[in-house]
């Protein structure tokens, strides 16, 4: 044993833990009620300090329980301040904990290097490092690193975007944290392992390095999971786009077929009528003609693709007794690809038709479509009646009643994905017993 170096005072550990929590709290600040935020920020400081000070007074044998209470205090602070689910809080907790370990270790290592002159075989006087200059320097180091980390974490955590990590993703971070924590602190517990540092300053370095690697591993794990999720989602959206488009092509072929039949039949009727005595058969023919007119009914909105979709979905509505009304200026969609039109309207109408199936009283089945100019923008609104309870997913998006939960959610997701291509926005809202989907496109990309 050469030098015995002082370890980090408890108060600094508490500040490190608290400031790491604040970084993650700040990422959720916009979506959380003010009282939650304030309670967690101030309450968290008091709680974490208290836990560290009490743990500091405990004998070494109770070191592990002390650490566990500190981690629990971090979790509690994050839970109050973010209002997230237990799984999300657990992820945030592991992240904040390792981050706190890292900044505390790094700052301490630097302060010891610059300000501490060791006396051989003396445990030293750690209080000397709590004097204003070294103390401030540590806080500055915390601040610098935390600002960087906050920038890096904005893309992974924020109140707006749904949390990608799930319960089953918790195992890897959990083990990374345990291993990081064990190896970084091994040298402090005993020098009698092959992994313990023996030279004074080196054990600080080992700790900093292991914590850094641990944090990097947690971050990389999150990135990886996000990437996989995004790729999967994109693939599903793509397949849903393709499905709508091929459905559109099919309907188009069907409708052309029917139009041809309609035309032929009309022609035949005219011929027969000319040949036979009109009196006896006139009423019969009129009936026949009326029924054929129904088949031939088309929507003429000014956009051929939209007309096909409206006609096809309109038929489904007629068959299911849904009161279907359309006010649409199809000319507004000139600059939009047929695939995008099919996606927007196909998905919106499919969802509306499906929801109508749950309305028990046929008189209450209504779907209204509106497509109009709004200034220089384009407004699309699809409203339908629904009945019963609508459940929402954890992140506030709509949950479906369909067995195929994941796929159905992509209906609205595909609409949003398509709208975003045109810088547009999509909202869904419940108004009494009406469900309203609104799409607003700025229109700058549509005026072809």
């Amino acid at each position: 044993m050469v030098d015995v170096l002082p370890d980090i005072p408890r108060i600094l550990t508490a500040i490190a833990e608290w400031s790491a929590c604040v970084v993650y709290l700040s990422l959720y600040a916009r979506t959380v009620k003010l009282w939650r935020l304030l309670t967690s920020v101030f309450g968290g400081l008091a709680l974490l300090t208290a836990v560290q000070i009490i743990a500091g007074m405990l004998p070494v044998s109770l070191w592990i329980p002390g650490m566990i209470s500190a981690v629990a205090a971090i979790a509690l602070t994050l839970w109050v301040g973010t209002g997230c689910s237990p799984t999300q809080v657990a992820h945030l907790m592991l992240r904040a904990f390792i981050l706190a370990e890292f900044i505390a270790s790094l700052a301490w290592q630097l302060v010891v290097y610059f300000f501490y002159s060791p006396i051989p075989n003396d445990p030293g006087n750690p209080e000397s490092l709590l004097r204003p200059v070294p103390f401030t320097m540590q806080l500055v180091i915390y601040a610098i690193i935390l600002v960087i980390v906050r920038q890096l974490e904005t893309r992974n955590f924020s109140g707006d975007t749904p949390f990608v990590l799930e319960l089953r993703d918790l195992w890897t971070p959990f083990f990374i944290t345990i291993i990081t924590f064990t190896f970084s602190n091994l040298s402090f517990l005993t020098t009698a392992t092959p992994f313990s540092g023996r030279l004074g300053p080196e054990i600080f370095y080992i700790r900093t390095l292991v914590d850094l690697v641990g944090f990097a591993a947690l971050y990389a794990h999150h990135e990886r999971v996000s990437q996989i999720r995004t790729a999967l989602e994109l693939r599903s959206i793509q397949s849903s786009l393709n499905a709508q488009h091929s459905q559109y092509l099919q309907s188009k072929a069907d409708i052309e077929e029917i139009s041809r039949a309609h035309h032929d039949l009309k022609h035949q009727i005219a011929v027969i009528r000319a040949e036979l005595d009109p009196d006896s058969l006139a009423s019969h023919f009129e009936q026949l003609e009326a029924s054929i007119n129904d088949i031939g009914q088309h929507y003429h909105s000014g956009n051929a693709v939209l007309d096909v979709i409206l006609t096809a979905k309109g038929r489904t509505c007629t068959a299911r007794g849904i009161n279907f009304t359309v006010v649409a200026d199809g000319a507004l969609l000139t600059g939009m690809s047929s695939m995008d039109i099919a996606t927007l309207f196909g998905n919106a109408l499919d969802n509306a038709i499906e929801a109508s199936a749950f309305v028990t009283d046929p008189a209450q089945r209504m779907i209204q479509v509106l497509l109009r100019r709004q200034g220089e923008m384009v407004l699309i609104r699809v409203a339908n009646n629904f009945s019963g309870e609508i459940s929402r997913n954890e992140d506030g998006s709509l949950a479906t009643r369909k067995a195929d939960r994941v796929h159905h959610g992509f209906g609205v997701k595909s609409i949003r994905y398509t709208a975003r291509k045109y810088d547009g926005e999509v909202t869904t809202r419940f108004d009494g017993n009406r469900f309203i989907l609104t799409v607003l496109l700025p229109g700058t990309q549509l005026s072809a």
Partner: protein
Amino acid sequence: MVRIAIVEDDAVSRKLLLDYIARYQREHDVEFDVTVFEDGVQIVRGYKPRFDIILLDIQMEHLDGMSAAQRIRRVDDQVVLLFITSSPQYAIKGYEVDASSYLLKPLPWFAFQEELTRCLTLVERNRGSSLLLQSGTEVIRLNIADIVYIESIKHRLTFHTLSGTYSIVGTLKDMDAQLEGHDFFRSNSCYLVNFAHVRGVRDQACVMTGNVELRISRPRKKQFMTALTEYFGAVS
């Protein structure tokens, strides 16, 4: 009191509409002042903006509903139009006269009720409320619907309205609170924009009535778009 006009040439349909309106008054405890016209020609002759809602049949003998609506719109951009038709392809062009939906014959009570309720909320929104401003010793009354946006410069607020600009001492924060429920949005630290006057969005700016471009602060852009979408979805 809500003033409703019915324009319908078929006596049976007219009777049904009157019955439905009577039933609506009973069930929803509201009072309507109903005027009946038997053809489009009748309502457009000497038309003055005095109705809140017009129920218009599309297929009529002398002047069809769509043409009547076009003539009405020339002098009245406030009235809520609700078409009634037996064939949907005639009503699909309702957007031309600012009608966002229609009723299909045979007219079911439920659909009628839903649509009339929707029209009534639009009427409610259209009814102009006003804002009183203290400017020095003078009190200015502004029609809220006429305010395009409010700009904050130093400690003063400038109201850009359709009829001119007015300036008073005050903060946007207080004004935002005072205009709560009137669909105004803080697009950045110095503008409070009236959604009703947003005509477009280009990159980082919104285009207002009168072609003024106002910057939307980057962190508020997404929220701005969502709120704007919600707003237009609700008022159409």
